């Protein structure tokens, strides 16, 4: 499942997509994100019949991703995003 967390407002689209079929709940993203955007839960709340740990975006951060992720996204010389780098399974992507 592609889980798109975030929002769209007049200033743009701000979504973090987690491919839950690739995510193995390893916790790397949780440690890598300086803004603590990620959390690993024992059961995917959007897929209740599957009992595997999976990463998701913390509920309180979901509506302010533009600002939470801002420090990792300078306008020039942008380094690789720590969350995307840390995910060996390649399950995380950003829409902006």
């Amino acid at each position: 499942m592609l889980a798109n967390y975030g929002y769209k407002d007049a200033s743009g689209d701000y979504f973090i997509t987690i491919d839950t079929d690739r995510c193995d709940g390893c916790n790397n993203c949780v440690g890598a994100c300086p803004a603590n955007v990620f959390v690993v839960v024992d059961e995917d709340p959007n897929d209740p019949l599957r009992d595997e740990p999976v990463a998701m975006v913390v509920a309180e951060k979901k509506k302010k991703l533009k600002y939470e992720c801002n420090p990792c996204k300078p306008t020039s010389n942008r380094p690789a995003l720590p969350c995307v780098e840390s995910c060996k399974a390649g399950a995380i992507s950003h829409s902006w």
Partner: protein
Amino acid sequence: MAEEKKQEFWRWTESNWKDPDMDWRDARFITVGIDVGSVSSQSTIMADGQVFAYANMRTGSDSPDSASNALNYALEATDLPADRMDYCIGTGYGRVNVPFADRSITEIACHARGANFIYGPAVRTVLDVGGQDIKAIQCDGKGKVTNFLMNDKCAAGTGRGMEVFADLLGVSITEVGDRSFEVKEEPAAVSSTCVVYAKSEATGLLRKGWSTEEVLAAYCRAMAERIYSLVERIGVTPEFAITGGMAKNRGVIDRLMPLIGLECMKTKWDTQIAGAAGAALFGYALCQKGKGRKK
């Protein structure tokens, strides 16, 4: 003192329904889904995975009360004793506030499952336009979510926005759809879908001499475009179905479908019960697996 006259154009009718041909005594499992949304609350009672009764009400200021009201309203239509229920699942925005629920499941999962039930297994893209959020969901033939997006930060293009507009223009919410097509020429969309700004823009248009119908048409178009921009993000695969209260507003839907380029699926069921129906189906699945309530 002048007499106070109060009219609420946004009020839609509450309803309850029971399948007259079904007897709950024949059923092995009675499961209940309660969907407490930001604007409306639904309860669906299922007997072995088939809808036995449902109710559709407005959510009050107290979520636990709204949940039990919705359930009692559905029970009212039946002779089912309240303690006969095998499993109850809460869903929706207020899902953690259903005190008598055995567990809660997100509305994303429930809406996909519910749409699979009320529209049939051919549905692949579900658009739920709720009271204060929009969900675009892709699912497989079993109603399992494969891709989803929920915008609950901004109420633009949602049911509550339409209620505000109905009230502003003094048009009953159920007539908005038809009235919005009573225009000689389709006007351009209002430039802002933000409920607050769109309201002030509409006031400006009325002052410029636009008719009520033209303003409705312009707002319905803006909502359709806003909804389309969200659906576009996850992509549309046929068949396409719409759940939630907005599915009943042809002013928005008939403007949205040409943008998407598909036909919208039809159903005999009330589109607002999709979430509650999905929750009841999850309850049924859990009971069948022996994961029901510990007795």
